[in-house]
């Protein structure tokens, strides 16, 4: 009886539990081994593959894929014309402008932590940033310097594009986008100027919006403004200021335009601008350098130059 019981139990609950415990020990050991191997070669773990998706061994396919299948990189081409990086030709001005935009965004966001866009607090917040906030002075000055430099860089970039004929076929549309971006940059500068609510900014906006008053059709004092029933309380200047005087509403609106609306619009156009540069054949560079290896000498024929960019 006892043996029967013992046998029954051996194949029964107790036996199963013992078997499970033994199996568990083996599984844990295997898992432990996997973990250790994972630490030695992190690229082979499932966690890594889930995050990065592409293999990272050095094949040309993977090198291209690491750019093309990356959400941040894929606006950039996988390969760039060797001659495009000739800074004597481009001065890198477009890139500098973009870099300054990044600097401005970053410093700007940090400044936003201490700035209240209200008439009571705006001016004092700037003083507070300059004198009390750790690195506030540096941050504010970086923002201001980057703003001035970005305007200069944008102009120089425009000059470069013009003087190198990089607006010609097929890049005409990209030139137009560039002009639009230039206007957006100037608007960013203008709206940001008002935010410290100091004498400089206040009067600059007064003058600027008073010029808006003279807009044809949409301004009170512009030609044909009276025809459309424009008054100081419903013309385009009123819409810009949120009122008929440069006051709290104007400050808040300048803040929103400066920090949110115009950067969003500018980002969209920048993405389009960079995309068009890529699609139009890359940075239009100078006459490509000929390497010996690229000159195909055919007997009796002129040497054929293989243009790296492939552009006509």
């Amino acid at each position: 009886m006892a043996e029967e019981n013992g046998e029954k139990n051996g194949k029964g609950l107790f036996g199963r539990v013992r078997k499970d415990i033994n199996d568990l020990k083996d599984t844990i050991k295997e898992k432990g081994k996997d973990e250790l191997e994972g630490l030695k070669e992190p690229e082979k773990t499932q966690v890594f593959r889930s995050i990065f998706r592409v293999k990272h061994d050095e094949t040309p396919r993977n090198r291209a894929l690491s750019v093309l299948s990356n959400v941040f990189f894929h606006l950039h081409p996988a390969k760039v014309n060797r001659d495009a990086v000739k800074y004597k030709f481009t001065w890198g001005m477009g890139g500098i402008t973009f870099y300054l935009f990044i600097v401005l965004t970053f410093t700007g966001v940090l400044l936003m932590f201490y700035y209240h866009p209200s008439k009571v607090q705006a001016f004092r917040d700037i003083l507070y940033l300059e004198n009390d906030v750790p690195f506030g002075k540096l941050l504010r000055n970086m923002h201001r310097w980057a703003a001035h430099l970005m305007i200069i860089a944008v102009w120089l970039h425009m000059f470069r594009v013009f003087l190198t004929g990089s607006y010609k076929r097929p890049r005409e549309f990209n030139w137009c986008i560039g002009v639009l971006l230039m206007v957006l940059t100037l608007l960013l500068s203008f709206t940001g100027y008002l935010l410290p609510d100091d004498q400089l900014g206040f009067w600059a906006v007064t003058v600027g919006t008073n010029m808006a008053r003279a807009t044809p059709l949409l301004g009170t004092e512009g030609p044909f403004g009276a025809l459309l029933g424009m008054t100081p309380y419903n013309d385009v200047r009123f819409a810009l200021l949120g009122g008929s005087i440069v006051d709290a509403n104007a400050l808040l609106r300048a803040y929103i335009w400066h920090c949110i609306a115009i950067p969003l619009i500018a980002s969209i156009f920048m993405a389009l601008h960079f995309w068009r540069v890529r699609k139009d054949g890359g940075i239009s560079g100078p006459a490509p350098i000929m390497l010996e290896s690229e000159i195909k000498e055919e007997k009796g024929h002129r040497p054929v130059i293989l243009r790296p960019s492939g552009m006509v």
Partner: protein
Amino acid sequence: MRRRVIWGMIYGYLGINLLMFLRFFFPRALYEPNTIFNIGYPADFSIGIDQRFLMTNRAWVVREPDRIFVIFARCTHLGCTPEWKPAENKFKCPCHGSGYDSEGVNFEGPAPRPMDRAKVAIDPTGKIIVDTSKLFMDDPRAGVNQFNDTGAYLPV
């Protein structure tokens, strides 16, 4: 036909949204200082320029032997607030240097015409009521001079 109706509805909806979006930028109630204010009795002012309502209401009260009028303190060039300089007997705009004489008539700088004057009236109690939203101008280019219209000054 049905497709057209539906597209029409979509465009209509988007069009209305666009109109709503544009209307959104024009607030109804404004928290601005009242443009109508009272400045006291004519006898409170002596001959010359009085600055006591400049900071609060953007107005200079000018008393001459035969009349009182109120200059709206906005430079006719680009809208800055000029300064009254008693020592030089002129108004000078700090923005671009427009100069006006003691009556607010431009004589130097980029200002195209004299500073505007605000509407003035006497209320039943004898106090002067000024309304800076109603301005009288003297524009030689347009051949218009409203400085002698009723409401542009008060004879005293």
